[in-house]
């Protein structure tokens, strides 16, 4: 029951995200856009390029979707509404996101195309740096909650959400989440301008549809993670818990998408350099800062 509810919510969220993304990138609000384009994709021929690595080519899109779904499984919508309340929830989310990288690597190598391969390898470099940031930011969060249970993390923010308690960690996590979801301005693996779609360049038809769906779900899970870890998840007055979760998640997703509309795409070197040289030291400082807050104050 829980699982069905969660998947339903996710799909609704993904749909809304897709609408938002269309609006952000084209400027026209088309509530039925995802349905029409999805149907169109299913109707089109799904071309397989010459001499592909067939296994990778076929497995990559579902793996992307599955990884995103797995990450969603440990994020609570409300106190009771969680698919798997794992003792290592906060670490598990990250494990799931790492498989997004694996999926994109496969998608990049599989179709035997230059743009796709460049995109896949770019994403590898990007995620290695930024999943590090995610883990480090989550360390500080788990320190405050004294637990890796995602539900405990939410409960620990009853007095003050983490976004205010540890603003540095919040900003870092937010940006790292955008990098993991390859949202513009960090959409280097797909980079429509220079790589002509990158990892998605060689995919057509229903495979592309699955991939887009997976990406939308991924954005939703990341937004949900931001809301759970930093914005107090289901906590909030008046409205029922699930509504708060949904509201916060959608809000975060909207902000993420909007940022991409106004910021130009970054250079690969800059992305890596800032991640390693600025982000990671800051994340370490954040851990130290939270430690001081917890032990001294």
């Amino acid at each position, binding site marked *: 029951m829980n699982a069905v509810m969660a998947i339903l919510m996710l799909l609704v969220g993904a749909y809304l995200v897709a609408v938002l993304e269309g609006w952000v990138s084209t400027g026209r609000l088309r509530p039925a856009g995802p349905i029409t384009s999805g149907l169109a994709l299913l109707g089109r021929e799904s071309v397989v390029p010459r001499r592909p690595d067939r296994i990778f080519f076929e497995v990559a899109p579902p793996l992307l979707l599955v990884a995103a779904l797995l990450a969603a499984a440990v994020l609570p919508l409300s106190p009771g509404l969680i698919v798997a309340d*794992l003792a290592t929830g906060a670490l598990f989310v990250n494990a799931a996101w790492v498989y997004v990288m694996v999926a994109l690597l496969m998608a990049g190598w599989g179709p035997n195309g230059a743009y796709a391969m460049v995109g896949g390898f770019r994403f590898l470099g990007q995620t290695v740096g930024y999943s590090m940031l995610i883990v480090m930011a989550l360390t500080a969060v788990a320190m405050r909650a004294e637990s890796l249970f995602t539900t405990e993390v939410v409960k620990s923010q009853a007095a003050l959400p983490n976004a205010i308690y540890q603003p540095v960690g919040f900003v870092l996590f937010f940006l790292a989440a955008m990098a993991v979801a390859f949202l513009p301005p960090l959409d280097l693996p797909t980079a429509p301008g220079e790589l002509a779609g990158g990892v998605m360049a060689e995919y057509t038809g229903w495979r592309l549809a699955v991939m887009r769906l997976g990406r939308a779900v991924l954005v939703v899970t990341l937004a949900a993670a931001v809301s759970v870890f930093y914005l107090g998840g289901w906590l909030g007055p008046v409205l029922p818990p699930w509504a708060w979760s949904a509201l916060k998640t959608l809000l975060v997703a909207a902000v993420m998408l909007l940022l991409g509309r106004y910021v130009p795409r970054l250079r690969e070197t800059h992305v890596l350099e800032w991640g390693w040289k600025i982000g990671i030291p800051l994340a370490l400082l954040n851990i130290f800062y939270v430690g001081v807050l917890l032990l001294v104050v």
Partner: protein
Amino acid sequence: MLQTVFTGLFGLAAIWFAVVVFRTSSMVRSALALLFSQAAIGAMFLAMQTEFLGVLQLTMMATEMAIMAIFMVMYMMDPGGLGGMDMTHQKRASQVSGALGGLAALAVAFFVGWGPIAAEVRPGEQVRGLGLEIMERSMLIFETAGVTILTAMIAATAIAIKRRGKE
């Protein structure tokens, strides 16, 4: 019972992927096969109720092996395996020693009396227990490991970096 089945299934997957690592001629495939082999090992951990280590194994090995794939592509003569080159040598010796080593370990696994089996572990306490272990009794070991990693990072960078003044 269910635990045994799951452990066995994931174990079979781990072995299957490990064999694929050395059977395929595409280097990226072989790196990703290793990835899935290690991921299957992580899943075995989960099946054996060792939650934290399982998740850690899943995370770490995925990153590690993906990086390995990039290095394979960079340094191999034929990363796609399209030329069908034979990349093995001293075949007979390797087969014999691999088989002997595996059989010896199997024999140990089957013929040693392992003593009483612990019935239950509570996953919820593991994270806490491991944390206390790390921060109290094994702290020195853990710190040593940390320093060792740092040293290895610096050493590896120093080896790999381009010499100043050359070229």
